């Protein structure tokens, strides 16, 4: 896996012109979710930072922001798409050999290297594991440079846990604490049942010297941030990945405005202290 240290937009082609990619592989992850492995028809795949996204263009339908969930050594991107509407539905229905337009990568990434020397707590809910997977891979590839690493994963049910084939080897590692929970389960599930913020007090990390990376549905992130704050983690040590509707993806159109920020360019990964007042924690 190679990651850029400079802004990839500076080097890439014109930001509005999609490049043609070929679908090399389609993996069904969940009933409504597939992973697409995409290779450029021309040239090399641009560098990226974990947490960034591409704009994927389903020809004849439209474009959607989709996080980079992995890269392969053969130079392809992996994107995990959940069919929720017209574009994502068309992308999730693509077959091997078909073409797709791709612009990007865009946005800020997880500042994985900045966490060196500190404990790292990764909290993923549902599809939120997709943009976090490259960050986890980067952490584990350079494991000795970090303190304790805790990966907390939540999903709706055992059947909807994303990437079980990736979770299993992480769980086997003695140098990583992986805690998995689901909201609902039958009696045949031997794992935890409960919401993902409930894992925070169960994980071992130094609240004064840790970095937290959080991604998932916004409500889940609000509760997770509350649990991290309650555990004593400072707001500036918490990073969240925001989602807003995107159009240009380069900070021009204003579609993705989030208070004074644009999620496409100032995000999607943002420091919690910068957005805390927009990201209010309602009384429940």
């Amino acid at each position, binding site marked *: 896996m190679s990651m850029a240290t400079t802004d990839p937009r500076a080097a890439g082609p014109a930001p509005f012109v999609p490049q043609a990619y070929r679908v090399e592989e389609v993996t069904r992850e969940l009933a409504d979710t597939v992973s697409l492995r995409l290779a450029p028809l021309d040239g090399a795949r641009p560098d990226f930072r974990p947490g960034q996204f591409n704009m994927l263009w389903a020809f004849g339908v439209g474009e959607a922001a989709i996080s980079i969930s992995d890269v392969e050594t053969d130079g392809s991107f992996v994107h995990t798409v959940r069919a929720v509407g017209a574009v994502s539905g068309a992308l999730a229905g693509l077959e091997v050999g078909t073409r797709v337009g791709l612009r990007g990568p865009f946005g800020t990434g997880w500042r994985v290297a900045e966490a060196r020397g500190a404990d790292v707590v990764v909290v993923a809910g549902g599809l939120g594991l997709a943009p976090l997977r490259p960050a986890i891979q980067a952490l584990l590839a350079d494991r000795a440079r970090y303190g304790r690493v805790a990966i907390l994963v939540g999903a709706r049910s055992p059947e909807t846990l994303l990437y079980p084939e990736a979770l299993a080897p992480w769980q086997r590692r003695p140098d990583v604490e992986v805690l998995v929970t689901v909201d609902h389960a039958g009696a045949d599930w031997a794992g935890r049942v409960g919401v993902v913020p*409930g894992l925070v007090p169960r994980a071992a990390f130094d609240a004064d010297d840790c970095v937290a990376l959080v991604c998932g549905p916004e409500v889940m992130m609000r509760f997770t941030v509350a649990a991290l704050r309650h555990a004593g983690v400072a707001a500036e040590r918490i990073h969240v990945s925001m989602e807003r509707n995107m159009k240009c993806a380069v900070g021009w159109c204003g579609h993705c405005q989030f208070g004074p920020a644009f999620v496409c360019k100032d995000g999607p990964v943002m420091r919690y202290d910068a957005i805390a007042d927009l990201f209010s924690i309602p009384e429940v």
Partner: protein
Amino acid sequence: MAYLERILGEHPFFAGLDDEHGRLLAGCARNRRFAAGEYLFREGEAADEFYLIRHGQVALETLVPGRAPLVIATLGEGEIVGASWLLPPYRWMFDARAVTLTRAIGLDAACLRGKCEVDHHLGYDMMKRFLPVVVKRLHDTRLQVLDVYGDD
């Protein structure tokens, strides 16, 4: 007795417990061990004991007619099982099943309620420990009900 007092004091639920209360509580306590698959209690039974998990995992379950039992929550080391012993009619609302071998301290509910009535300082201390757990579980349940993962 001294052994149970020490174990009680070491459990996170009783962190910072004063010695006098520790002695009173230990008088209501006993060691419990549940094999995997064994039930701590069943829905509708008298809520006559509550548990501090020392080791293992417990699933709170309910039966939905025509379906397999549903797990509502799992509880692990350092957590407590059961709040129904606090309030009338003192009946369990769910089944509690040991998922793995579970070691716990059981506290006799009638004994505990009696001591709390006599010593309101102890009663207030117990309430201050219980309420945050109950409120947190209420919040967690609300989040579960929100079904935040949508169409996953």
